[in-house]
């Protein structure tokens, strides 16, 4: 009875709570791991000091150890994240993409020779060196690893020569190391990844074949170049395609980031398809397309792309280090003291030797040669990391000493990351390594750099010498004449000075918004304002979207003002909708007029600290631009200095006299003058209130409306002095705006 009742109940009432874990298992676990890694990252950065002294990779690995220990205790297997396909197809591309995208292109191309030299030749040197010396060690009977043949040693050496930049670069950045060293380290690590993977595949192939013929090996080394060049070719091809496609995405801005990502990933996959160097492909794709793409896409897309790339890249990186820790606890290890210690020794030895020798060879060709400290930094900064680990883990099972290799790799990684990673910072500081001047680039820097380049190029032409400036010039000419026409949508040859100027402008605009409204959510509106203005400059009229954006912008700012309005006018007037509307319209007109007259001038003054209005005034600073200012300065007095060298009291008068509505204002003027002797202004807050009091008493309805206007402007001006949020520009425009408003409230 009960049973049937139960089953009937089952049929009629489906259970409310079921646990169907199997269905969501995989996405759930992925999400869980990613979240865990993210929490780890958040946690580490709570105390800034920790990440300064201990590189994040160390912390992640340690955390991985802990989690691994836990998992081992409960006898659970970690997910098979480091299987070959998952790693190479899903986890590696984002890391490479991130590195490639954020590589500073100009210093890179200036140093491309050095970078490639270190990456290619250096890696080969390291591999051969470590491989052969380890093979020699293997011959010694005492260590009991005689059965590792040459190919396997070389394979292992290839794994070990993959250098990992993340920890080192963050240290370098932190101590503002000189640019040359930074870019060489960055570039070397990046391209070294490509070379390592190629060598790895090569030796894997050879080791699997179990053939000892050296001839085969050399033939494969020829294939090495084919693979590299093939990768470059596909990279260029896809870079070109991406840039070309973005030319047409003007109307469908939302999918722009998608285009970029998909094409980059595609370049990786296609290179993999043909067994070419996929890392090289995706790197070259990114490098080549970045410049053109950033010109074509909208500002928002640009930001999105950068953020997404950074996010995915860092997640990938974090996960790998995390798993490193986990897996190193949970796998079975094969430990061999001799082999492992010698591996460590040789790794360090060959790296130092390699850097030394290679630098000696290439220094004469460099404009700024590397000194000893630079070389030390380069050599000591050769940490091993994610890629080595993954490559070791994906060794085929056919290799007898696979476990030994894995253990060994983990040992090397842990040693370099922990010991070298932690000590590199104090060491570099101790050695007084050359630093760079990390001031924000000013317009002057850019101009003078350019001037110098032109001068040197000119002198070179004059005396008939060539150098890389000439190549650069030639490339730029070619670029401007052909490539840009094809790839860029709105093609106007743009000087770097102008783009820097625009960048600075945008930065200032963002700063304005920060100080004004204190919430950055207004920023996108200004961005799109800028962008639409850029597009609208052809049409010379305001698109409805512009107005909409402005409303959005205004509404964000308006809210706060309204609050203040209420507190000051509680004496007699209810918060009046009219006030709000006036404010709205006034700001509207301000922005419109400032945009119309060309924002270069607007942010011109905004750019500078406004105490230097003593340039020959009356020239371009003044043209068509409401002489107000967006940025707050510390002195109240300075605030009132606009393009007119004036001080505070005259400020008001000037405003008055410039306003077109002369007459009704005068009574208020007297009003003010009455006020002033009475007020000492101990507390600026009281000032406006007293004014209101007076005007309240002396109300004559007739100019209530106008006086309210003026009062508002006054009071806004007070506000501006009290709370420096960019309202100072307001009163200036009253002159323009008074007219329409004058008629209104009556």
């Amino acid at each position, binding site marked *: 009875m009960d049973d049937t009742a139960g089953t009937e109940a089952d049929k009629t009432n489906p259970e409310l709570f079921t646990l169907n874990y199997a269905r969501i298992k995989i996405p759930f676990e992925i999400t869980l791991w990613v979240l865990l890694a993210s929490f780890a990252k958040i946690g580490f950065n709570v105390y800034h000091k920790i990440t300064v002294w201990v590189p994040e990779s160390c912390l992640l690995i340690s955390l991985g150890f802990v989690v691994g220990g836990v998992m081992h205790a409960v006898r659970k297997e970690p997910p098979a994240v480091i299987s070959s396909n998952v790693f190479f197809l899903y986890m590696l591309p984002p890391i490479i993409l991130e590195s490639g995208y954020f590589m500073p292109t100009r210093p890179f191309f200036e140093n491309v020779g050095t970078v490639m030299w270190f990456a290619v030749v250096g890696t080969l040197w390291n591999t051969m060196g470590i491989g052969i010396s380890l093979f020699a060690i293997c011959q010694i009977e005492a260590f009991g690893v005689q059965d590792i043949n040459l190919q396997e040693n070389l394979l292992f050496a290839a794994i070990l020569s993959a250098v990992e930049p993340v920890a080192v670069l963050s240290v370098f950045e932190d101590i503002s190391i000189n640019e040359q060293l930074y870019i060489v380290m960055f570039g070397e690590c990046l391209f070294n990844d490509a070379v390592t993977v190629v060598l790895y595949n090569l030796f894997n192939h050879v080791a699997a074949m179990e053939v000892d013929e050296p001839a085969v090996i050399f033939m494969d080394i020829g294939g090495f170049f084919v693979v590299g060049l093939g990768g470059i070719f596909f990279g260029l091809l896809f870079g070109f395609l991406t840039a070309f496609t973005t030319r047409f995405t003007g109307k469908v801005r939302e999918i722009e980031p998608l285009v970029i990502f998909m094409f980059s990933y595609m370049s990786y996959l296609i290179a993999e398809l043909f067994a070419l160097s996929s890392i090289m492909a995706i790197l070259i794709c990114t490098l080549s397309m970045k410049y053109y793409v950033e010109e074509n896409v909208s500002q928002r897309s640009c930001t999105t792309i950068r953020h997404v790339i950074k996010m995915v890249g860092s997640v990938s990186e974090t996960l790998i280090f995390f798993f490193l820790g986990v897996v190193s606890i949970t796998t079975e290890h094969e430990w061999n003291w001799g082999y492992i210690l010698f591996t460590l020794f040789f790794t360090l030895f060959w790296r130092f030797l390699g850097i030394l020798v290679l630098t000696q060879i290439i220094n004469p060709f460099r*404009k*700024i*040669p590397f000194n000893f400290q630079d070389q030390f930094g380069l050599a000591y900064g050769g940490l091993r990391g994610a890629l080595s680990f993954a490559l070791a883990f994906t060794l085929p099972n056919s290799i007898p000493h696979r476990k030994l290799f894995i253990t060994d790799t983990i040992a090397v990684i842990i040693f370099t990351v922990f010991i070298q990673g932690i000590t590199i910072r104090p060491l570099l500081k101790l050695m007084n390594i050359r630093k760079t*001047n990390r*001031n924000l680039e*000013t*317009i*002057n*820097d850019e*101009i*003078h*750099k*350019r*001037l*110098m*380049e*032109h*001068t*040197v*190029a*000119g*002198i*070179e*032409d*004059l*005396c*008939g*010498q*060539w*150098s890389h400036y000439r190549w650069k*010039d030639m490339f730029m*000419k070619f670029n401007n004449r052909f490539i840009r026409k094809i790839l860029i949508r709105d093609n*106007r*040859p*743009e*000087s770097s*000075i*102008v783009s820097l*100027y625009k960048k600075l402008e945008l930065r200032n605009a963002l700063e304005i918004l920060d100080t004004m409204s204190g919430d950055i959510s207004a920023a996108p509106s200004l961005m799109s304002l800028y962008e639409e203005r850029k597009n609208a400059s052809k049409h010379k009229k305001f698109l409805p979207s512009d107005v909409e954006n402005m409303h959005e912008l205004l509404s964000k700012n308006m809210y706060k003002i309204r609050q203040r309005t209420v507190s000051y006018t509680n004496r007699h007037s209810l918060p009046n909708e009219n006030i709000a509307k006036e404010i709205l319209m006034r700001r509207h007109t301000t922005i419109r007029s400032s945009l119309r007259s*060309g924002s*270069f*001038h607007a942010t*011109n003054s905004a*750019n*500078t*600290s406004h*105490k*230097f*209005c*003593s*340039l*020959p005034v009356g*020239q*371009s*600073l003044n*043209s068509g631009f409401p002489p107000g200012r967006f940025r707050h300065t510390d002195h109240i007095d300075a605030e009132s*200095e606009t393009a007119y*060298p*004036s*001080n505070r009291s005259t400020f008001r008068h000037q405003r008055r006299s410039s306003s077109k509505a002369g007459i009704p204002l005068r009574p208020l003027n007297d009003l003010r003058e009455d006020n002033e002797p009475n007020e000492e202004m101990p507390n600026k807050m009281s000032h406006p209130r007293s004014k209101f009091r007076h005007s309240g008493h002396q109300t004559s309805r007739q100019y209530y409306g106008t006086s309210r206007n003026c009062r508002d402007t006054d009071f806004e001006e007070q506000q501006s002095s009290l709370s420096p949020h960019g309202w100072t520009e307001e009163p200036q425009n009253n002159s323009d705006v008074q007219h329409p408003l004058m008629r209104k409230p009556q």
Partner: protein
Amino acid sequence: MGSFQSLPDDHQYRTLSQKTGFSLEQIGILHNRFKQLSQNEDTLRRDDLKTIQDLESNPIRSQIIEAFFDKRNFQKDATGSVQEIGFEEFLTVMSYFRAPAHQITEEQREEIRRAKLRFLFNMHDTDNDGTITLEEYRHVVEELLSRSGALGRETAKGIADAAMLEVASITVGPMAPDEFYEGITFEQFLKILKGVEIETRMHIRFLNMDTTVLCK
């Protein structure tokens, strides 16, 4: 200048080498070039330099050419410009672009830096009053940007003004509203370019090839 003959003379080379710091070989190369430019005469004129085709596309061409004829670059405390120069002056101007030797003291480095920056300064300060005024700066920026044809003059002016204001803020500091900023003096120029590694960027590498055939 009068003592210089067109035939390469070892003794003269040596004195020049000591004076300007070039090696004998480099002087030989430059001499060949000089002869080629001046069509085998003793002196070089502005027109000769204007014929160099590669120089055409350089935005600050006129200033570079002018720099060769500017007396300030030849001797200290001389002003004005000359119409034609000889090989010695040519070499003197070129010596501003010599690469600094590796082992030099801090002082020497500083001196070299000053000399190079002085050269640049003179290039801009056309009226030779010791300061780069707004007008001169504007002129420079306009020329630099003249390549990108789409820019209006307003933009160039705006940029020049912003740059001037920047210089003012860095060098002079807060000024009273009535002060008038005259222009960039040489000391201020040094200050704003402190961050740029002039001595390493501003030099020509001499390749050992006979480029008289290759370059026009």
